[in-house]
């Protein structure tokens, strides 16, 4: 088995469908060493590679005006190979073969090791390139087909039922039902499901834009991690993040950011200035557009009087969203107080008036946080 053949198999079976859609077919596991050895290999199917490049550029152009992303880098090959192996470890055939169950665990473990060897993106272009590959990662789903007929039924997991079972549908009273199962909801699984979730979370941690673009996901839950915070450190990164988040429902984003902020405060005793800067930017943008900062009801901060109280899980998702908006409003007020902000006095006064109702109730909370 050569590196080129593995690269072709990976590109055709996983990377191209991951961008273009269609049948994503993981085959024989690749393993950590082979994944890291793919390096700067180029796909041999130039026509397919061109189509993939066009689709990636199209996705990237929803965020930035860019014309070229280039062939997969070594890190992208490795991440794709790890995703391939994770999907292969969820193959239902492992459940049927008792003697081969251990292989699934080994494949998942090696996939995790591969991901951990991939460095975070060094710059915005690299982050954008990874996002262009992995943006639809959480859309991977398997179609399970249940075929029932007059004398029995059978389930086909991720494969098409044979034509003989579908023949004479009226005479045999054939009924076909299809259900799509997302990657993290696949069953039966031989490995522990948390391995799969952790593996996806690790991949997301290596693609911060994808992490932010899917922050409203159910699991793995969005959390402030170093890669994402590193992206947000620069104004250009924050602008990119704002564009990504603007494509999601604001309430879902607020909820996800509030939940992550709450977890960070509970774990570290505070929220870093980078995350607060993003929240402040969102609050100012909303207030400037007449958004929900001043339109929403004041958050019920009576439930969060102290940092200790914040450590307990919130009772309602609305409270998490309100927490994000309150933190953002308070940070935005501090930002507006700075003389370097490029707002006129009238705009600044208007923004203050819009932000103060939300921030006013968070003052006590913010004062207790160390980093503010």
């Amino acid at each position, binding site marked *: *088995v050569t590196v080129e053949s593995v690269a072709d198999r990976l590109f055709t079976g996983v990377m191209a*469908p*991951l961008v*273009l*859609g*269609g*049948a*994503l*077919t*993981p*085959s*024989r*596991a*690749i*393993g*950590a*060493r*082979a994944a*890291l050895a793919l390096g700067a290999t180029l796909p041999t199917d130039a026509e397919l590679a061109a189509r993939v490049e066009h*689709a990636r550029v*199209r996705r990237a152009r929803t965020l930035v005006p860019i014309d070229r992303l280039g062939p997969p880098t070594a890190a992208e090959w490795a991440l794709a190979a790890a995703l391939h192996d994770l*999907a*292969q470890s969820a*193959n*239902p*055939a*492992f459940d049927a*073969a008792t003697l*081969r169950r*251990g*292989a*699934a665990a*080994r*494949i998942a473990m*090696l996939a995790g*090791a*591969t991901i951990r*060897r991939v460095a975070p993106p060094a710059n915005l272009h690299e982050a954008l390139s990874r996002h262009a590959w992995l943006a*639809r990662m959480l*859309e*991977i*789903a*398997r*179609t399970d087909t249940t075929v029932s007929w007059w004398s029995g039924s059978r389930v086909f*997991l*991720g*494969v098409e039922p044979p034509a003989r079972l579908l023949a004479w549908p009226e005479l045999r009273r054939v009924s076909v039902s299809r259900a*799509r199962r997302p*990657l993290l909801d696949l069953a039966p699984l031989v490995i522990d499901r948390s391995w799969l979730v952790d593996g996806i979370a690790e991949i997301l941690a290596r693609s911060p834009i994808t992490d932010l673009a899917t922050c409203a996901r159910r699991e793995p839950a969005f959390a402030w991690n170093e890669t994402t915070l590193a992206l947000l450190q620069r104004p250009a990164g924050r602008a990119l993040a704002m564009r990504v988040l603007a494509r999601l429902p604001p309430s879902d984003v607020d909820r996800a950011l509030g939940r992550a902020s709450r977890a960070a405060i509970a774990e570290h005793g505070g929220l870093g200035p980078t995350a607060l800067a993003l929240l402040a930017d969102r609050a100012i943008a909303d207030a400037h557009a007449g958004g929900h900062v001043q339109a929403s009801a004041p958050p019920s901060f009576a439930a969060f009087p102290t940092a200790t109280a914040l450590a307990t899980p919130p009772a309602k998702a609305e409270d998490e969203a309100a927490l994000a908006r309150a933190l953002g409003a308070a940070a935005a007020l501090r930002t507006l107080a700075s003389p370097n902000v490029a707002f006129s006095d009238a705009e600044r006064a208007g923004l203050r008036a819009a932000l103060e109702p939300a921030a006013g109730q968070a003052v006590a909370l913010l004062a207790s946080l160390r980093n503010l």
Partner: protein
Amino acid sequence: MIERVALHQTRLHTPGLGLDAKGVALGTRGLVLFPSLDRLVMMLAAYTHEQSLEGLMPSMAMNVVRSKLGAREVTLEIAAESSDRMDRVAETARLVGGLTFTGTSRHFVQYRDGAAPFGYDARELLSTDGALALYHDRFTQSYDIERRIDLRALLLRLCPRLDRTTTLEPGVRIVVAEQGLGPSLVHYLVRSRVEGEACVAEWPPESALSDAPVERWVVRIPELPARMVPLLSSTPGFTCFLPAGQGVAVEAGYRHPIELRACPVFDAAGLVLLRGRGDDPWIIERLPRMGPLTTFARVELRTTHGDGDADGAVAVRTLLPEALRVPLRIDPSSAPWRKVTASWVPLDQFPLLRRLAYALPHATVAGTRVATTARGIFLRAEMGIEAIPLGTFFVEVYPRLFLPAGYDVTPAVSPEVLLRALDVTASSLVFVGSDARAWSVDEQAFTGLETALVEAPAWEAAEARAIERTLVEATIDLRVAPIGLRPARGLEPTDT
């Protein structure tokens, strides 16, 4: 003495002057002052050029008025129903040099103009016994009415102007013939198969020396043939008139200065004939009953040779006619072709017809019907078959009977008799060829050339497909592949 009415002004000094819905100062009557009678005529001519006087007639009054200084002027009074009507009258009056006023009883103020869009009001009223007091921004004058002017009398006094183009205008003609020429004219018209009706009217003697009334024939011709127009227009003793409105006609070659159709002052039961050259009009107060021209045709009686001869010769007995049948012949004729509506195309020219079909215009293809028989192809087109220059043309000499164009039948029997002699069914068309042989084609056999021409090409259904939506991303479907016997064989961890 007058001032402009301001916007939203509510109080006016002139009695009988109010403000309409637009805020324009308006009385119940409008008055136009003309310096002379000819200006009034110009005004009427200009107004009737586009509109009828019917709306103005009930309230219209024309007077000759005289000022205190003895100057005579002419007024036209109408009901000022709205500022729209007054605007139209004022515009026309301004065109001919008339001044427009509005008021109710005696006091009339200047009607609105460009300088005062809401009109004028008189601050101080004249103390006068005159019938009219007019207030203008240039003068204030009172007038007494000297006499009234009747519109009908005015119209009758106006001389029609010379306009030769009316001679050639189509339509009804009324010809007045002197007493001695009337019967000859009627006989000429009857002989020429010109329809019309005539009556005799009487006028008072033209001279005091004569005591007998003057009688003239009045002939009404709905459609006078063009060839007779010069004759009736230029022959002394005939005067040709064109109807110019209800109950009025103007001599051909002349045109009345005022559009008489817009002046409903003439009685429809009578007839006023306005003559040119300054001659007095002929007026028939009540037109006598008119009879068809044919009733006045000359009657001739044959001469009789004694008693009983007047009843005519009575046949003693009747016999069946002797058989006198002769073969029918179709001979060339010099008569002009009429109703060339069918043609016969021999079978050997059929390919030529097919090629010609590509060159035929749509109107010809749509209007032509075709019947294909063993003797050839018969084409029919009501609008004329000459557009298809092929085959032998046939003339429809009688309904359902066709003869070759340029030929006539001998003996010269009527087509109806010939068709009856041929004894064909009512649904058959008969084509008699130049060799006197007749072919009968059933009318049902004719179909539209349009449908007969088109040879439908073989076709196949083209299934419409939805346009591929390239920007829609397909779903990612995870497929399961066999894992093999040793799925983890050869997998190696990382170096470190």
